[in-house]
């Protein structure tokens, strides 16, 4: 399996898109920190980059990569290898190289300019979101043979988690404003990895006061040690469950 990871990683690194992505992230984070005199303001601008752009690039690149590796997968499936190992190697290779790109592009400047708890949290969340969206992309890519359809599903899932989900939650909130919904809000937030990431970073930023009453509820729940732990477990569950689903599908797929 280590050998396979090695081949996947060399192949991805030969692909110039990941290198371009690294430099793009590096450029943006360095310029944001140089523009703002206050590092905390730079962090706030970076927040949107981490929550929107990073998942988008991860999900699209991974989907296209899996489709383009169809030959590679076909070649190796007829060899004495476990399908499980092949699929896990692809996952490790993709998640590893995209996380590395993020760590160099955003993690490094953030920790150089502003090595606070917020910075570490943001770096960690960026890596976790990258891995989750790689898993989502692999699920979308294994679900359908049609490349255009697969990329469409990926983009829709990204759109759903990054944009639509919040709208739906807000809609529900207004519809049921007569009821106490604080607990339901906490559960709803846990269903969306992007929201969970946002809340965890914002709580570290100490601007949760700006989020009003709901912010206070979140602070009460996610601000505590147990809450943090639960959030982390939920994020790890996201990675595990989505990847397992894609693996199950891949094991039964006809090539």
């Amino acid at each position, binding site marked *: 399996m280590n*050998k*396979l990871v090695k*081949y996947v990683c060399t*192949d991805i690194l*030969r692909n110039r898109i990941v290198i371009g992505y690294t430099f793009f992230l590096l450029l943006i984070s360095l310029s944001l920190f140089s523009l703002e005199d206050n590092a905390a303001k730079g962090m706030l601008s970076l927040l949107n980059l981490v929550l929107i752009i990073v998942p988008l690039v991860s999900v699209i690149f991974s989907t296209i990569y899996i489709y383009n*590796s*169809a*030959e*590679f997968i*076909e*070649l*190796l*499936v*007829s*060899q*004495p*290898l*476990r*399908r499980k190992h092949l699929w896990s190697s692809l996952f490790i290779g993709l998640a590893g190289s995209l996380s590395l790109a993020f760590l160099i592009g955003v993690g490094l400047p953030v920790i150089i300019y502003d090595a606070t708890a917020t910075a570490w949290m943001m770096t960690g969340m960026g890596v976790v979101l990258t891995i989750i969206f790689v898993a989502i992309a692999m699920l979308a890519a294994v679900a359908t043979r049609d490349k255009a359809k697969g990329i469409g599903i990926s983009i829709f899932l990204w759109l759903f988690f990054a944009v639509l989900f919040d709208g739906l939650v807000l809609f529900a909130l207004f519809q049921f404003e007569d009821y106490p919904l604080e607990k339901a809000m906490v559960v709803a937030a846990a269903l969306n990895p992007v929201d969970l990431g946002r809340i965890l970073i914002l709580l570290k930023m100490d601007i949760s006061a700006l989020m009003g009453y709901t912010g206070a509820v979140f602070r009460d729940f996610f601000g505590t040690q147990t809450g943090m732990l639960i959030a982390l477990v939920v994020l790890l569950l996201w990675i595990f469950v989505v990847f397992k689903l894609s693996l199950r599908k891949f094991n*039964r797929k*006809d*090539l």
Partner: protein
Amino acid sequence: MIIASNVSKKFGKLKALDNVSVACNKGECIALLGPNGSGKTTLIKSILGMVVPDSGFITFNGKNILHDWLYRRHIGYMPQIGRYPDNMTIEQVFSMMKDIRSAEGNKQPDNSLAEQFGLMDILQKRMRTLSGGTRQKVSASIAFMFDPDVFILDEPTAGLDPVAAEVLKERIILEKSKGKLVLITSHILSELDDLITHVIYMQEGSMLFHKKIGDLQADTGEIKLSKAIAAVMLKK
């Protein structure tokens, strides 16, 4: 060695394999024949585990191949259309295959077929620049590289030039004489005459017959395989 029992597979509404049962033994050289779309490649892919049958099972050396993967180290497979990562050179593909198979404690890989095909002089070429015939040569070299017990060759000579086809044929005869099982599909029946010992004929996903070549010749009264098969097809 390879036994398939009541294997069925559907792709949507199309029945690619319909209750196929077949047994293949050591030392046999079996021609898998039938019109286009009769399920030959699906049967081969089921044996390799690339296609999972809807019902029925396949055993290799007495072990069910479902959830197994190690049995594939005993198989050299040459696909109908060899598809390889575009960016890799021939040398990288070869060394990757050696790397993957080396964990089995195999002997030194056997590059003789690649040498005979003249691939050793163009090792630095990338896969995407190769012609269809050269790709077939790469596929064949990989299939024969690790001295497996079973060879599964899907249209091996399609796209090969006459010299290369002859080289490959000699090699198949050599491996057969070593007592290995060879499964071969081809539409060029005249080539198969001096190779095969058994014939499997498939039509629309089901197996019409599985006979020794001698029996087939006796039944149809034809010596040449092409004539014998034509006689069978006309009778249907």
